[in-house]
């Protein structure tokens, strides 16, 4: 399940929804990304997430499908927020559920790594020194690259 929304989300509610009625899931992993008040020595008061409507949902669905192809997942959830966010706000939620923990852990990490480099979202930071678009990080690209080799499990 993939959602792009301005509103906040409740990780507990989303986990319950994903697990409702299921008795085949032995492990779930939830990852939440939060907004920090400091980034690379700059104070950030507001972070605005922009996206390409239509393509963002499509890209997230493709990434989710790829995770299901690589790992034996029973279910998954990806929620990405857009619009203005404040320090401490939740930005992104990834939940993976599987019969066993290894697939859930690995798939959650994979989803986050690919989502950061392969889905059309852009961050703009606003603070005392004005506005600036966040540049992409080579460490994120490296993190995504390590999954291009053959999958570890399944």
């Amino acid at each position, binding site marked *: 399940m993939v959602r792009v929304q301005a509103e906040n989300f409740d990780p507990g509610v989303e986990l319950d929804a994903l697990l409702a009625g299921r008795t085949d899931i032995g492990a779930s992993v939830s990852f939440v990304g939060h907004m920090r008040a400091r980034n690379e020595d700059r104070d950030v008061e507001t972070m605005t*997430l922009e996206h390409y409507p*239509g393509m963002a949902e*499509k890209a997230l669905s493709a990434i989710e499908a790829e995770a299901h192809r690589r790992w034996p997942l029973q279910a998954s959830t990806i929620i990405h927020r857009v619009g203005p966010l404040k320090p401490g706000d939740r930005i*992104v939620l990834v939940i993976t559920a599987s019969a066993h923990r290894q697939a859930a852990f690995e798939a959650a990490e994979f989803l986050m790594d690919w989502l950061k480099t392969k*889905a059309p979202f*852009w961050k703009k930071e606003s603070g005392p020194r004005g506005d600036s678009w966040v540049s*992409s990080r080579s460490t994120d690209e490296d993190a995504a690259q390590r999954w291009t080799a053959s999958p570890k499990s399944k």
Partner: protein
Amino acid sequence: MKVLYFAWFRDRIGLAEEEIDLSGSKDLTVRDFIRDLATRSDGYAAAFEDMNLVHVALDMQEVDHDTLVGNASEIAFYPPFTGG
């Protein structure tokens, strides 16, 4: 064709989207189109200054600069993704 600009492309060009008639330019590649756009104003020139940072989607599918624009109905220009 609908042309979309995201993030600092929109800031520099001063537009979120515009309609550009590309009928009659059948062999146009993305790279050719970028070169044309870059001559439109200082804002466009600034947006397309560093070709390594110019990412492109045709009908919501990422493509490289050598791809033919063809009969896509939508082209989008944007910097590398920074979500998550």
